[in-house]
């Protein structure tokens, strides 16, 4: 476990040096200290379960992102239109979507993607469900259809094997 912390800390230090561009002793030691601190915090969070394939997830991300950004733009335009509309055609409501078959990282990704698209955001995350607040009935129904969940479950690479 100590090795994992040290690897993460040195990667963070590399990022630090890349971004600051200074190699003075003061800045370097501050970088080492903060790198170790952040690596320890990440370790405490224990986000990485041993059964999770990070590489597969990262390599598949480019297939997901274009679709997701299109979705972000589309929902932005929708919410903007509703705000500018004189009658404010909104119907706020809360609903739950299931996260069955998604592992921890995929659930986090799913919850974050829901929040990143305007019109929906995550209120609460349980073991099996995510509680979502939607600006309109339509966005809630669209989320219930589960297209986004499908694409994220492809990311984690479980549906292919099971």
């Amino acid at each position, binding site marked *: 476990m100590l090795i994992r912390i040290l690897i993460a800390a040195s990667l963070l230090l590399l990022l630090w040096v890349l971004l600051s561009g200074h190699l003075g002793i003061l800045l370097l030691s501050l970088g080492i200290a903060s790198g170790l601190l952040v690596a320890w915090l990440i370790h405490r969070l224990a986000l990485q379960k041993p059964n999770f394939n990070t590489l597969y997830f990262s390599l598949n991300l480019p297939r997901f992102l274009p679709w997701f950004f299109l979705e972000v*733009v589309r929902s*932005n335009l929708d919410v*903007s239109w509703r*705000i500018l509309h004189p009658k*404010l055609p909104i119907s706020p409501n809360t609903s739950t979507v299931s996260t069955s078959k998604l592992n921890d990282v995929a659930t986090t990704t799913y919850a*974050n993607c829901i*929040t*990143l698209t305007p019109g929906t*955001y995550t*209120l609460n995350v349980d073991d099996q469900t995510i509680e979502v607040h939607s600006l309109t009935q339509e966005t809630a129904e669209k989320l219930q259809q589960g297209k986004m969940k499908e694409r994220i479950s492809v990311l984690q690479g479980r549906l292919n094997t099971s």
Partner: protein
Amino acid sequence: MFVVSWILLVLGSVFCLIGTLGLMRLPDFYTRVHAASIIDSLGAILILLGLITQSQDPLVIIKLILILLFMMLTGPTAVHALAHTAVLSEKNRASDQNSKHPQEP
């Protein structure tokens, strides 16, 4: 390139303006968060893309892309923390029978 950059910057500003307008027009806390997330997503993305197309230094471009990535992670986290706290405090208030304060000052 110059024209593209300015179109992106102006569009981003317009979406920030729409988000601010929504922040004032929408009725309560939960719906206002939706307006704020417009500023957070398309507003920030367009303005940062505009800045990326304006700079020539590759290091600056890398830094701007990193800012974009970090915002994509910190934004939802902050929104979730806010919304979750709102839900919890509302539950607490509902269970607290003695206090009969109005919902919002």
